[in-house]
């Protein structure tokens, strides 16, 4: 799979040089994006102790970070991620593509942690990698997603 299949389609307008009054030719989002944004927003409705284990409400900073991330990777060829509340007020996004998986955890303090899984044999430690997206997290996250969909 090449990078070209992941061309952003969230916002495509005519080139500015044409005319500032040119009408927008089309404005479209990948089908999954709006649903994902709504699902992340809905996590804000969960009460304190939503899990029964004393977790706080899902923090607005975690929700905002997850929504920004989703908007930054709004590609047609990605599936809708599984969106979950996470203990501590965090938000989790889980993508799966064939035998590759990615989990992103958006913490209230701004950290974005990831778990990358390759293959079904979870007993092999090298099949899993855990880390934190510290530098330019959206770019780093995009690279992980490209890995997941098989782009080289």
């Amino acid at each position: 799979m090449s990078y070209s299949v992941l061309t952003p389609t969230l916002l495509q307008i005519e080139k500015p040089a044409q005319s500032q009054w040119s009408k927008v030719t089309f404005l479209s989002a990948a089908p999954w994006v709006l649903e994902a944004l709504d699902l992340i927003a809905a996590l804000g409705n969960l009460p304190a102790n939503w899990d029964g284990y004393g977790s706080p409400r899902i923090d607005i900073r975690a929700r905002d970070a997850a929504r920004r991330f989703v908007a930054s990777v709004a590609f047609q060829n990605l599936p809708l991620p599984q969106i979950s509340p996470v203990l501590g007020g965090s938000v989790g996004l889980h993508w799966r593509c064939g035998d590759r998986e990615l989990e992103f955890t958006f913490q209230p303090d701004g950290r974005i942690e990831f778990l990358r899984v390759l293959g079904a044999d979870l007993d092999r430690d090298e099949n899993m990698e855990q880390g934190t997206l510290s530098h330019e997290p959206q770019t780093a996250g995009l690279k992980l997603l490209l890995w997941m969909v098989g782009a080289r």
Partner: protein
Amino acid sequence: MSPRENDANIADATVLWRAVHNLQVYRDDDGVERAQSWAFESRDNEMSAWVAAETELGKLQAKFPESRIAEFTVGDARELRNIVTRDPVGDDDSHVVVCPVPGKSKAQVKKDARRLASKARLLP
């Protein structure tokens, strides 16, 4: 808090139940419902579970109305270098905690949560 010690009196074959919030359950490509790895994490490295033979499913479901119940064995948890020990809460003696062995890295804890999620079976 002093480190927890593994309770050797709890056999590996002992079945444990853990409540998993509905939003931490997904349907895999094969159609099977599975729990997310986040459902097997805890803030204090002490993950609550209950000895199935010492409690009632309905009782646990009533305590966690927005959740499903995931089932795994003590052996599953121990294979992933966890300690399982009793932790009675009030009059509930069936409560146990699953804790990583001392010194286990945060990365390994996360990976093992994913592994335990794959071993666990969600009850209907």
